[in-house]
């Protein structure tokens, strides 16, 4: 096993969802999908966002597009229009999730082009 950051094997987008945000995490290839499905649990996401996500984390699988969808409850510092934060809408939570490091098999090489050349 070796460590790899998610941005090398997946891409993401996030936005506001009620009092929190949602983050969609999409793997670039089938092996990447197996890895994120196994490694990126709701618990790990909750602890990755410690201090930002105060509520629970819900996790959904969207296998047809090799994606996981996370709902980060109470993650906007007061929710949407009431928040004083720069990122009052969770627009940057996707980029933050891509910084997570996970275990991947030694022989795994992500699809070409995932990283900036």
């Amino acid at each position, binding site marked *: 096993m070796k460590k790899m950051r998610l941005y090398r094997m997946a*891409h993401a987008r996030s*936005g506001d969802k009620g009092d929190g945000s949602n983050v969609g995490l999409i793997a670039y290839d089938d092996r990447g999908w197996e890895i994120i499905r196994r490694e990126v649990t709701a618990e790990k996401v909750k602890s990755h966002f410690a201090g930002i996500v105060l509520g629970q984390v819900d996790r959904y699988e969207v296998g047809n597009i090799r994606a996981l969808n996370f709902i980060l409850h109470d993650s906007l510092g007061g929710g949407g229009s009431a928040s004083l*934060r720069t990122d009052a809408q969770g627009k940057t939570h996707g980029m933050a999730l891509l910084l997570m490091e996970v275990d991947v098999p030694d022989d795994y090489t992500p699809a070409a082009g995932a990283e900036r*050349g």
Partner: protein
Amino acid sequence: MIRIANGQGFWGDSVDAPVRLVREGPLDYLTLDYLAEVTMSIMQKLKRRDPEGRSGYATDFVDLTRRILPDILEKNIRVVANAGGVNPGACVKAVAAVAREGGARGLKVGMVLGDDILDRLDAILSEGVTLANMDDGRPLSEVRDRVLAANVYMSAFPIAAALDLGASIVVTGRGTDPGLVVGPLLHEFKWQKDDWNRLASATVAGHIVECGAQCTGGNFSRWWEVNGWDHLGYPVVEAVPDGNFVVTKHEGTGGLVTVDTVSEQLVYEMGDPSSYITPDVVADFTSIQLQQAGNDRVAVSGVKGRPATDSCKVSISYLDGYSAVGQLTVSGPDALDKAKVAAEALWGRLKRAGLSYDQTHTEFVGAGACHGRIGRSGPASAAPLEIVMRVGVKDKDQKKVDRFGKEIAPLVTSGPPGITGFAGGRPRAAEVIAFWPALIPKDLVRADVRVEEV
């Protein structure tokens, strides 16, 4: 095959994008989404303050109509916009005047009413509908006296009805965002209320394009692959009667339409992917099949839908106190340490003046304001050259919030060295508008469709 483009993702999106859409390639329909949740309450306030009742809608749409009128007349492009806000009647009047000036006599303009239930709110509550908060179950009575706006997310069928009556321009108030695309497809293909799979597919099409350029390269994770940022193409849906469609953009425009850019927009603002609920259908996003079908073309098929629920979502907004946010730029050396001293000085001075607030917030932009310690766990970066100290308060008392705004500028001369950037003046207390999502039985919602010649 029908081509539908969306040229506006929110009120404040590019003013040129819709003009380019009608000029730079073939099109049957142009849709424009002006309404975010917060927009409705802003419009409600504008309407209340205007004694002549001419305010409360997206005025950008009137200017846009003037610009695109010759093109839509010549090319027979129909326009569907939720520009009506909380005053669709005034919006239609202004649009009709512009059309008349432009020599479009005989053009039919349609309007969908029925979403605005602010005046009916107490009657609805007295019928035993609690309009309880969908997130936490609290009854609306808790905030009833502070409610600013209440609008139902309407079905797309009334939009189709207006098009059936010959409207070339349809103005609505609050409806679902995807409904702007679903309406024209219902009109063109004569789908029935129980064509669940087709309705779901049309809903997915609307969802993909509702944020404008977010499916054509905007906000895309691999931003370095996107070319032509200065003339980014906005999305065009090519739909066929069986419900399948292709997402593309006009030839020669910038941007990128790939399975990856479309996938990112599919998951945007997603909840439970198996149940994307609209008034017309429950769409299953786990059934969607995406396939690259050429350069900047993504084919979407296989979408499954289930019967609609018996309620509509209502977006209610209410006044929730006041807030103010201000900032200063602190330059190096030791920019972050100095910014922290400045922030401590500010809060200490307010405390000595006897002030406390329901909520305070301090951020150091440039040192993890967005990602906290997650950002620091990433690739190592050098000490920042500047830090933006960003501070804010929220409170029920407007005067206390205004007082906070006076405490920022003094730091330039009475704080650590190298502080600048106080250019915008003292921040003033602004109303905080909060949202109250609720459900209303469909039998209490009635759409009113009107079409008239200009």
